[in-house]
């Protein structure tokens, strides 16, 4: 035998992974641009849940090919001629034919290359800008929680899961089914033999004795054969084996609600909005890994506050002065109505440029310390300060809170990578 048969199905399936990584490295800038667009377009809730399909232009995605151009005269052999004869002219499609030999029509539009990123790859690129520390990445990328539960028996499995009792039970029933009729027959034969022997003993006649003895031999051979057959049936067979069956069962977890509050006065521009959005997405992603159900409530405010939906939160164009307490009031109202702190874990994140109507500050202080911080699991505040304009009212106040309460974290954001530290306390707490 000059051949081998090898089962490679359990082998490493990821042979193309290093090649895929190299491809990703090469087109990383295009990918990042595409992701940025994706952030702007997508829902806070949906980001990262679906596979992202990216389209990039093909140019730059192939090695150059040394090949003939389209210009010139060539002969082509074609099959399936039903009707043409020599001299026939078959019109070309697209009406080519350029005057002058210099026109080589090579104007294909850039074909686009469609590329699907897995959730992991997408999150990696999203986080790269933000310099996410590893332990946070791992938390966010981690799979849902499952537990294993018993679910009866199955005919295939690993030796560790073999259920011996069950297998023997099945073996016994198989044996019974197979041997039963044989045993019955054997019993009948033995009985016949016994009776025959008695008859033989009492027979004196030579003639009849001969036939009786013949019959005796027949019976004995048949009995021998039958016994052999019975012995050949194994007491256990591969077919009988039964293994314990385990199924994965998702672990129900508690629920959380996330309050997103944003100051929409005129001072919040595109950059500020993008930072705020990343901020909300990050918290949502994190919470999604810990809680099975995460509700999101959007509250926008200038001098008045309103609960809105996702689109209005980011795209509506009302502006006005700034009264922060309006938002806080709305939040407490909603909590009272819909989110009992006993049943829900409450998280809040607030984004603002720091300004507030000066007479509002005492109210903010009261609402925060009396009604919000006591019920929140965590309160994150980011102040969007691209141009470093110095201390703001809200900042000083919240700084004070941060010293007295453990569940609040504040940060000034000058750059995208400043977002993470706001969450550090939160993540550390959850992971301890």
């Amino acid at each position, binding site marked *: 035998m000059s051949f081998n*048969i090898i089962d490679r199905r359990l082998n490493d399936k990821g042979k*193309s992974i290093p090649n895929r990584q190299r491809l990703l490295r090469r087109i990383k800038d295009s990918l990042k641009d595409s992701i940025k667009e994706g952030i702007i377009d997508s829902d806070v809730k949906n980001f990262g849940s679906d596979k992202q399909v990216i389209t990039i232009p093909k140019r730059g995605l192939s*090695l150059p090919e040394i090949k003939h151009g389209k210009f010139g005269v060539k*002969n082509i052999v074609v099959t399936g001629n039903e009707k043409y004869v020599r001299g026939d002219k078959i019109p070309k499609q697209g009406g080519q034919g350029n005057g002058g030999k210099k026109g*080589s029509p090579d104007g294909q539009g850039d074909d686009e290359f469609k590329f699907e990123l897995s959730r992991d790859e997408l999150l990696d690129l999203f986080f790269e800008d933000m310099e996410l520390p590893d332990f946070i990445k791992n938390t966010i990328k981690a799979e849902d929680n499952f537990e294993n539960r018993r679910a009866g028996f199955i005919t295939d499995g690993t030796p560790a899961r073999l259920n011996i009792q069950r297998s023997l039970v099945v073996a016994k029933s198989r044996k019974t089914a197979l041997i039963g009729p044989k045993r019955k027959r054997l019993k009948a034969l033995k009985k016949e033999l016994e009776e025959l022997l008695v008859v033989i003993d009492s027979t004196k006649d030579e003639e009849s004795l001969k036939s009786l003895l013949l019959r005796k031999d027949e019976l004995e051979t048949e009995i021998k054969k039958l016994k052999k057959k019975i012995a050949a049936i194994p007491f256990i067979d591969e077919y009988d084996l039964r293994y314990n069956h385990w199924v994965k069962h998702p672990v129900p977890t508690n629920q959380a609600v996330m309050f997103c509050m944003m100051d929409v006065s005129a001072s919040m521009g595109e950059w500020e909005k993008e930072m705020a959005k990343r901020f909300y997405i990050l918290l949502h992603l994190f919470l999604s890994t810990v809680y099975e159900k995460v509700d999101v409530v959007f509250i926008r405010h200038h001098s008045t506050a309103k609960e809105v939906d996702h689109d209005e939160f980011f795209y509506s164009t009302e502006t006005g002065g700034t009264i922060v307490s309006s938002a806080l009031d709305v939040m407490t109202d909603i909590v009272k109505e819909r989110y009992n702190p006993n049943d829900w874990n409450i998280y809040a994140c607030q984004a603002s440029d720091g300004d507030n109507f000066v007479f509002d500050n005492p109210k903010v202080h009261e609402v925060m310390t009396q009604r919000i911080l006591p019920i929140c699991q965590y309160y994150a505040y980011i102040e969007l300060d691209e141009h470093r304009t110095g201390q703001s009212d809200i900042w000083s106040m919240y700084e004070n809170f941060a010293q007295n309460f453990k569940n609040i974290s504040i940060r000034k954001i000058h750059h995208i990578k400043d977002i993470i530290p706001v969450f550090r306390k939160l993540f550390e707490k959850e992971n301890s």
Partner: protein
Amino acid sequence: MKQYKPLTTSSEWTFELIQEYTEHIERIAKEKYDLDLYPNSIEIIGSEQMLDAYSSHAMPIMYNHWTFGKSFVSNHNSYKKGYTGLAYEVVINSSPTIAYLMEENTMLTQILVIAHACVGHNYVYKNNYMFKEWTDAEAILDYLKFAKKYIADCEEKYGYEEVEKFLDACMTWQFYGVSKYKRPDDLSKKKQKERDKKRRQMMHEDAHEIWSTVPDLNKGRPDEMKKEKFPKHPEENILYFLEKNTPKIDEWKQEIIRIVRKIGQYFYPQLQAKVVHEGTATYWHYTIVNDLYEMGLIDDGFMVEFLALHTNVVNQPRGSAMMNPYALGFFILKDIERICTEPTDEDYEWFPDIAGNGKPIETIKWASTNFKDESFIQQFLSPNAIRHFKMFSVEDDSEKPYYLVNDIHDKNGYKAIRERLARQYNLSSMIPEIQIENVDAWGDRSITLTHTMYNGIYLDVKETVEALKHLRYIWGYDVILTTKDEQGTKHITYIISEDDIDIIDHMAEDEDDEEDQIALAFQGLYGGYIP
């Protein structure tokens, strides 16, 4: 023939059945048809592994490169959309010959793949003259292991970006790494080590050949020395030339050039023997499966499945300029069978050497081992085949808005059609002929190449410019490429310098004004593309 009962009638395969059928198949191949084969290694894989396999030229081990990643994504996208099925057969030219069977295949499909790949393709790999000359089946996998590790080590030492840039440049020219008229050297590991040692010695001992052209004034005037051409004769093995002669090149870069050209050399015959390969493999799967049926090892149900599958494989779509190599190769070999056993008068006229020789198997073996596609078609494409496929030829002039039918499948057309079809498989029609003409060793160290036009066809301008930029990156000095026709007249010259690209159109109306020439070139040839 000994009679058997079908080993199975179910479509489910098992390892035992694969074993038994393979034993029968190999025995038929060796005892009935006397086919000399490499040992076979049959590997069962899943569909994702199959995708992995043929995204990197099907080699089980290969160095990593982003083009393979892209190839994987493309294939994966097509597969998911249902545009293409996965190949049933992927087989590797090595000893033992590796054939992959997908676990989703039915029993009959596995039988077909085994006959097709483990007998048919195996036979061609071992016995066809092109493969015997250019590939070393026993050493290739070890060599690829070495190559993969070497490149990975370079990535660590010198940074993946630099290695990737250099690899990209070399791979662009991977089909220009073969010396068509010299015997290729060995791939074995031991010789590799010896060569490394030798190379290191030589590095210390002599300067590159180029610098030996520095004149010795005692020997004569510098002008005379200048006239000595380097290289003396045009060099077609561009990568080899670069490996040996690039000024101040690092040793690891030389080794990478060497790796790319060795692998290019390994795949070189594959480009030129597709029809021979697939035709032979199809012929043997057809013959052997029929034998299995006659012996009773497979039943009618299997045969029905087989005929459906086989018909699909050898289907040639009508009105197509793309010739299915399975269809063409199989038909030609079956035709040879007919010519040897029941020739018509026409056959006697066209194939006097083999018509009626009564030795179909021997002739088929000879046809599949001593020819490559171009010569195979030129030798064996019969009028019968031309009529069967209803072949006709058209002239495609890119300046005209129509195709002109110049020959059809009648008595006056057979010869022309056969010659034209054969020419389509000529290497130069697929890979433009480019050679290194000269190096200005004494002056600016620029390297000049000549492209000899095939059928008066120009190179694709955009791609050529990019490819020449890569060449410049390897060489380090300016690169000049001139397109000449078969009479030696210059048509176009590309000049790639560090910051600039010039294209000169020698056939421009106003030949005397060079500036005009360049302007015209940009305007017309470039088609508006600004580099």
